């Protein structure tokens, strides 16, 4: 089953613009993670935010987490054509070991 839902499903922007993707989930979580996938193959872990954290940064990435609203956002600043990929959020429920992935946002960054 999929718990997270990303919004929007697809996003098209120009290089240099910022890209914001949102993720909503349904249960209590231990942590929330964002992954990137190129060309429908392996996923790459981008960033993890714990349930007691509200914001985290990594390079051009900024992640926020609002556990009261059960939502998270991923902001990519100053986007590049190489950022074109699908982005997935994944949650680890409290008491469970596995990650549950959302449906993904397809990001297209045009030069």
């Amino acid at each position, binding site marked *: 089953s*999929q718990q997270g839902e990303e919004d929007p499903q697809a996003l098209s922007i120009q290089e240099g613009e910022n890209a914001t993707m949102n993720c909503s989930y349904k249960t209590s979580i*231990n*942590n929330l*993670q964002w*992954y990137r996938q190129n060309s*429908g*193959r*392996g*996923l*790459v*872990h981008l960033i*993890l935010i*714990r349930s007691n954290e509200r914001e985290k940064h990594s390079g051009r990435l900024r992640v926020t987490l609002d556990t009261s609203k059960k939502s998270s956002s991923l902001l990519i600043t100053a986007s590049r054509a190489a950022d074109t990929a699908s982005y*997935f959020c*994944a949650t680890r429920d409290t008491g469970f*070991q*596995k*990650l*549950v*992935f*959302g*449906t*993904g946002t397809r990001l297209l960054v045009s030069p």
Partner: protein
Amino acid sequence: GAGVSQSPSNKVTEKGKDVELRCDPISGHTALYWYRQSLGQGLEFLIYFQGNSAPDKSGLPSDRFSAERTGGSVSTLTIQRTQQEDSAVYLCASSLEGDSNLGGYTFGSGTRLTVV
């Protein structure tokens, strides 16, 4: 190895045949996961191994699917009597420990299975 290795990278099989997909996790990673991804879809959890504990098989879609992890390392996902709806990319991932709050999964490049 340096990363998670999956083989084969592509597999075309006839409906009704059995297939075996292999995953070689990162050395020292005690947790191993199998997911599958149908075209344009999210990831569907299949099975999870953690050390010597009994695996979490709650995501296996039918009894045609089974998986083993030998010696706490290499894992094999077996699909018996394949059906066309089994066509998908099968992704394997490993992590240091199942309950880690420190880092994420490392994924392999997947096996693209096509059942004709």
